[in-house]
């Protein structure tokens, strides 16, 4: 059963299957939201803070997610799998470019 994920920064919601990462689910929307980088837990651009909801994770680089981040559920969306409905906000280093007031004309709307 798919779960609903809400990006609080822009109010967009999408569905995400339990076997899909939060990033894969969002990519199916074909619109802007969480920045997409390596999709392997190594580059850190898709960092989000999970505000509510249950989930599981796979390995991600400590360069981007340390113990404090884990305690505060600041994780890489490409490595987080939903176990229920979730809400999150984007905190990766490209956050401004994807959630800022000015749309980036190079990216699909």
């Amino acid at each position, binding site marked *: 059963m798919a779960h609903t994920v809400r990006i609080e920064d822009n109010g967009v919601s999408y569905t995400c299957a339990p076997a899909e990462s939060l990033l894969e689910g969002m990519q199916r929307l074909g619109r802007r939201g969480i920045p*997409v*980088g*390596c*999709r*392997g*837990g*190594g*580059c850190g*651009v898709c960092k989000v803070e999970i505000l509510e909801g249950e989930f599981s994770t*796979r*390995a*991600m*680089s*400590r*360069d981007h997610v340390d113990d404090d981040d884990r305690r505060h559920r600041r994780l890489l969306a490409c490595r987080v799998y939903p176990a229920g409905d979730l809400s999150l906000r984007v905190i990766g*280093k*490209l956050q401004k*470019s994807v959630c800022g007031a000015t749309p980036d004309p*190079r990216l699909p709307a």
Partner: protein
Amino acid sequence: MALTGVLRPGHAQIRVLDLDESVRFYKDVLGLVETGRDAHGRVYFKCWDERDHHSFVIREADRAGLDFFGFRVLDTATLDKLDADLQAYGLKTERIPAGEMLATGERVRFELPSGHLIELFAEKTKVGNGIPLINPAPWAKARDNGIAPIRLDHTLLYGPNVAAVQKIFTEVLGFYLVERVLTPDGNANAAIWLSCGQKVHDIAFAEYPEPGKLHHCSFLMESWEHVLRAGDIMSMNAVPVDIGPTRHGVTRGCTIYAWDPSGNRFETFMGGHLPYPDYETMTWTFDNFGQGLDYPQRKLHETFLTVVS
């Protein structure tokens, strides 16, 4: 003999987040040949047409990225001379004993002002490419396993102090500057492409605030058709692709950028022009960086500047 000193890229050691998943990727999808495992848990690979024991080593770690990048030099006398030259230049060097890495002689290691560890070595066991040296066939069966590049070609590293890095490579190690991209104000280099032979580059650097970052390790393909076939295999295996297939303006090489399962970018690359050490450096202004990166699309992909491991 014209080619002396530093000969070619010899090895990269990369950190991966899940060893088994990464071994499967590098063997079955990229199509490297596994040549050994050591007591540190490292797994050694070579490209099918390489003759040395290994060119690509992975180890499991809690973060992705590059441990070090090594170059083969002509012989041990060259190794000793370059070690002395690096020290005379003011760099601290370290000797890693023979055998620390499988089938590899003594290595000289030093840290660049960009935060990267570079190694030089003169000896590594030749295991061959599966083709006899007498009456050799043009290729071996391993050529058809996965993407199957023919060699580790070069790396692009991101870090600070690119101007100081350039001086070390050109003034101590005998490299020359083939191409460069200027900073927006035109007063410095944002990125540099350096060669130690007649390849269009053996190592490249881009100015970046965080030290020691890996942009990509590049693997050489035989033809544009092999690059397209690599793209097919990436999609068949749901490998995340960054850019391409396309052609770079810088180097004229044809390319796909993609990521391994830990977010280390790699490149399947072919072509490029053939520079000589006497050629003038080619310069790209920053406003043409898009064409330099992706010539047909004329696009400075955001991930190129921001996504590293």
